[in-house]
Structures are given as C-alpha cells and as structure tokens.
C-alpha cells in the first residue's frame, strides 16, 4: 500500500504541478464569478474536469442556462470515451466497483501518464488508481485554495502555466513508437488545428484523433499487404 502510494506520487507530481497552477487559477476565476468556496469544492469533486469547469464558470457568469452548460460539458468531455477505451485493455480482471472508482479519475493527464506506464510494463492497476486519486485530491485542494487565497499568487509565476504543455509534449514523445505513430500524430495535429478553426466548441479533438487513428489502421493494412501478410505491425 505504502509502496503503491509512493510510486503513485513519483508518477503524479508533474500532473500535480500543472493542476495546482490551473486549480488556483480556476478558484480565483470562480470566486470572481461569485461562486462560493463550498460550490467550487462541490464542482471539483463531482465533475473533476478542468477545461469544462472553466467553461461552466464563464457560461454561468454570462447567464447561460443549466441545459446549455450541461450539453457543452458533455461535448467537451466526450473525448474521455477514447481514453477510457485505451485504458480498458490494461484493467483486466478488476471488479465493476473498482472500475467505477477508477473511471472517476480519468482525465487527459492521468490517462496519458498511466497509459505510458502500462506500455512500459512498469505499472499495475493499483498504481494507476493511486495516480488518479492523488491527482484528484490535488485538483480539489488547489481549486479550493484558489477560491480562498488565489489573488495573492501572481499569474504565471515560475512558468508554472507551461507545466502541462511540457508534460504532454514529453508523453507524445513516448507515444512515437514507430513511423505509423509519427504519421498518425502529424495527421491528428494538423486535422485538429484545421477542425478547431472550422468547428465551434471542443469536438475537434475527438474528430481529429478518431480520423487520424483510422488512417493509421488503414496504413498498417497497406503496409502488411505490401510485405505479403507478414503481421509485423501486430502491436
């Protein structure tokens, strides 16, 4: 147990660094939108999804209706469907209660860290659950702290708002495990930029990644056919 927590901390600290920065910012913003600290805490516990919490606060302060905010949240967070599917392969033999607790903590960041660790064969589901909950506590704590005292921290101190971008860049590097992966990443990135200009909202991430991954599967097919059915790309 102690060992699992320690490994969890070792893996989760880059996530926590980023969450503290964003969580404090969220707390400050929410407090300025006249959302009480108790309400901030409730949202962070029940939703636990950074970007959609920011969007909800800005929609609330511009007077949007409940249904509009919930629909937007759904669209913004639908991408977790893909992340949860990718993680599922590594969670064999766990009970539904365990899986349900695990699912609560799937975010862009915990997904990326846990999946990388699983692929390196240095990880088990308990480690992954620890990362999810450590990150979750960090998020809840820092949003509450932001609600109380965030205005005393200068924005952008020590480049802290770059922590998550840097983490994602490195996790992307870990994912580039062959030419197909590089090709898929380039296609997804370019499509995502194009879609983000054309489509309002956040669905461009899902559209771009789903399309790029299908192109990737198609490329693997073509490659295997040209090497006469040698299933070299069985990953």
């Amino acid at each position: 147990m102690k060992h699992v927590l320690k490994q969890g901390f070792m893996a989760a600290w880059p996530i926590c660094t980023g969450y503290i920065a964003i969580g404090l910012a969220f707390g400050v913003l929410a407090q300025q939108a006249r959302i009480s600290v108790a309400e901030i805490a409730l949202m962070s516990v029940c939703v636990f999804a950074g970007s959609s919490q920011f969007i909800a606060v800005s929609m609330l302060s511009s007077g949007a209706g409940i249904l509009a905010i919930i629909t937007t949240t759904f669209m913004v967070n639908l991408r977790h469907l893909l992340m949860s599917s990718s993680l599922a392969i590594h969670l064999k033999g766990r009970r539904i209660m365990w899986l349900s607790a695990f699912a609560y903590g799937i975010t862009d960041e915990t997904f990326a860290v846990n999946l990388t660790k699983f692929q390196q064969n240095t990880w088990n589901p308990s480690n992954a659950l620890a990362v999810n909950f450590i990150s979750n506590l960090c998020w809840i704590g820092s949003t509450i702290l932001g609600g109380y005292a965030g205005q005393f921290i200068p924005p952008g101190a020590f480049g802290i708002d770059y922590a998550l971008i840097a983490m994602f860049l490195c996790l992307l590097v870990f994912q580039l495990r062959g030419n197909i992966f590089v090709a898929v990443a380039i296609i997804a990135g370019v499509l995502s930029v194009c879609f983000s200009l054309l489509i309002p909202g956040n669905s461009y991430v899902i559209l771009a990644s789903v399309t790029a991954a299908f192109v990737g599967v198609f490329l693997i097919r073509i490659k295997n056919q040209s090497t006469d059915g040698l299933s070299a790309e069985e990953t």
Partner: protein
Amino acid sequence: MIDKHYIVLIIGMGLVTYIPRWLPVAALSGRELPLWLRQWLDLIPAAILSALILPALLAGPTPGSLHFLQPKLLVALPTFGFALKTRSLGGTVIIGMLLYWLAEKLI
C-alpha cells in the same frame, strides 16, 4: 449556502462527464477485442495528445485565430527536443517551465 439550481447543474455536469469515462472501462475490460480495434486503440494516445497540443500551441488571443511566433510555440520546440533526447518526464516539465518563464521575461 449552495443554491438549488447550482446543485442540479453540478449533478448534470457530473453525470455527463462520468458516463463517457465509465462506459468503456466497464464494458471493454476483460474482453478480447478484434485486431483492428486493438491497433486503432493503440494509435489513439498519439493522436489525442497531438490533437490536444497543436491547437493549444498555435491558438491566438482570440478564438479562431492562429499565431505562429508566440512564446508557447517557440518554447515547445526545444522542450520537445529535450524530451526526445532525454525521455525524462520530470526533466521535460522543469525545462519547459524554465524556458517559458525566461521567454515571457524576454519577449
């Protein structure tokens, strides 16, 4: 004091966020998936990470605009290079923050 409408909002947001997180792990774990689906899921992380990062690096101050010569994009290049070379997550985070902090000071 927590407003009643706010509680409805939070429950709604919580449900629509939780269900997409829960459904695949509940339905897919422990199942044998066809080869194409495993290949597809294997490619999804690279695709998602790239699809998340690139628009964020290029986004300008107003929605729908792209900016190329801005600190977050310029800092991304050496940070990416550092990650390729060292494959160290912690190191990359620290280098990225440091470079961004310097870039913000200088530019």
